[in-house]
């Protein structure tokens, strides 16, 4: 499942890095809050553990062997945030030091295995384990199912990323420039191996380890709060004021007029007026692989498009003459709405703060 350099186009790599970065950022924030100074050694040792587990040959029914990721056990013990960080660190060392997986595709690999794998594994495990006793057999079963599903969902993400490459990135003669197989080939090819071997290996190792921990080291099931019960350092790490974030948001708002440079309308975002305009119809046909749009505006589209009229249609408020200023104003309005929503949500969901100090 480790995608090497060269399989994904640069734009796919950048997009997946951006998704992964948001996952890393929120995971780091949460783990830092829960573990404070305790975070670095715990996550590092778990990352080293995940790395070594990936090297284990797991015997499977039928006499063959497979490799597990260890993401399920990491998610059960550390929680999804801790697991995201630990598995991402392990994948980074694999890519940089051992050449397993690419550098440009590291964001994709971390998104698929560390982020999607951890979140799915934790969600499925919690769903099936429910409120059962820590030593209940149901927990081992939950770990097995969580392991099997998480690996297969991660593989599906990988297959999807590989499968969209030939459709999106090919030269004038139609030759694929990156991974050459379309979705209808990439998905079955990737899933067959994971539904049979890799998923089974993760299920076996997850269930086996949960059973072992239930009998020998049950304390680890109490999660991140329990493993972090050591004294914390004198000065705990506090979250930095979000000043830099505001600078970035401001910069991005000033950059919004770049949208004016993009020619035409985004594919699939046509209005009923566009579908009625002959010039736009020709462009839509060219952008849709020479499939002509319907001869008349679809009745449902016509009907539903009149339900809501945006206050700032096309990011250009009617009372503003300059398109550039309209874009900036729309960005300010949008950011303002998000800030307002965040403040209201925080007020509603705020709970009394617990005593966080540990002796």
């Amino acid at each position: 499942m480790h995608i090497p350099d060269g399989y994904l186009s640069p734009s796919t790599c950048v997009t997946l890095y951006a998704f992964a970065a948001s996952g890393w950022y929120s995971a780091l924030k949460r783990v830092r809050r829960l573990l404070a100074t305790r975070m670095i050694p715990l996550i590092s040792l778990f990352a080293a553990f995940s790395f070594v587990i990936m090297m284990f040959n797991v015997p499977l029914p039928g006499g063959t062997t497979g490799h597990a990721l260890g993401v399920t056990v990491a998610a059960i013990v550390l929680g999804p945030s801790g697991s995201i960080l630990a598995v991402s660190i392990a994948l980074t060392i694999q890519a940089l030091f051992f050449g397993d997986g690419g550098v440009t595709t590291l964001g994709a690999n971390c998104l698929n295995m560390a982020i999607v794998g951890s979140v799915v594994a934790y969600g499925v495990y919690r769903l099936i384990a429910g409120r059962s006793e820590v030593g209940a057999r149901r927990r081992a079963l939950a770990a097995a199912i969580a392991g099997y599903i998480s690996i297969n969902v991660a593989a599906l993400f990988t297959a999807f990323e590989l499968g969209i490459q030939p459709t999106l990135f090919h030269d004038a003669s139609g030759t694929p420039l990156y991974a050459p197989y379309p979705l209808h080939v990439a998905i079955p090819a990737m899933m067959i191996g994971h539904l049979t071997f890799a998923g089974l290996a993760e299920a076996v190792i997850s269930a086996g380890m949960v059973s072992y921990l239930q009998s020998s080291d049950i304390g680890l099931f109490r999660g991140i709060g329990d493993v972090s019960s050591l004294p914390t350092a004198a000065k705990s790490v506090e979250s930095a004021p979000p000043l830099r974030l505001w600078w970035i948001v401001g910069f991005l708002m000033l950059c919004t007029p770049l949208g004016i440079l993009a020619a035409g309308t985004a594919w699939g975002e046509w209005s009923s007026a566009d579908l009625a305009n002959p010039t736009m119809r020709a462009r839509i046909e060219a952008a849709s692989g020479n499939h002509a749009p319907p001869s008349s505006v679809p009745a449902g589209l016509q009907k539903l498009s009149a339900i809501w009229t945006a206050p700032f249609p096309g990011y250009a408020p009617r009372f503003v003459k300059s398109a550039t200023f309209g874009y900036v104003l729309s960005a300010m309005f949008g950011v303002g709405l998000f800030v307002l929503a965040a403040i209201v949500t925080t007020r509603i969901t705020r709970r009394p703060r617990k005593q966080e100090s540990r002796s």
Partner: protein
Amino acid sequence: MSQESFIESTLRGFTKAFSKALISEQAASQPGLLQCFDPRVRVVGVLSLVISVVLSRKFAVITVVMVLTILLATASRLSVRSLARRVWFVVLGFTGLIALPAVFITPGRRIVLLSALHLSISAPGLRSAALLVLRVETAATLTTVLVLCTPWAHILKALRSLRMPAEIVTMLAMTHRYVFLLIETANQMFESRQSRMVGKLTGPDKRRMTARTAGVLLSKSVELSHEVYLAMLSRGFDGEVRVLTDFRLKVLDYLGLTAFVCFACVATWMGR
């Protein structure tokens, strides 16, 4: 699969990881062209070449970068044979196998008809497969050359001076250090178990044994993290991570960086 081969293949994997790390450390300490440059120049230079390879759409441009990489490796005292064994054959075996069906199933102008097998090779399929294999080979060779010519500690310091968060750099360094300790621990557990086996294990026993070993390793990892943390506290750790970056750029480094980045820009431009 016999019980010996399942344990032995795991042990073989551990040994391979150790030998890779050892070879990297030895190569990094040798004098050579790439080793002359500041680690930051090496990291930025090689990564810019990797990005130019990924961006390039032309066979000839990627070939030129590959040739340059081989020349760079030779001038850095790296053995071409070891690169072939460590990267080229592995990538060819993996990516070549993945790319092979594309030669036959990609639609387009047929250039060879294998009538006995009812298959035909299409020009776009052949070009697509060759482009993928060459691009992956070149990118993997570049990353390997960087790792073989730069100690891991220097790569991390370079990443820190390139603004990677100190906590992440510290975690990467600590993980790398303890990976080998945990590999050694797992190695000993498997070896001691193997030395006590007189009969054949059944399938469920094999799985139980692997899961138990992994479980013990997990418990040991958590215990070790407690000990490491207490040791950090005893040395005055206060939650702030400080990484010493004492690199100084010289004239040669500026020249090297300019050469790397210019070459990468030209390759990207030519290969667009």
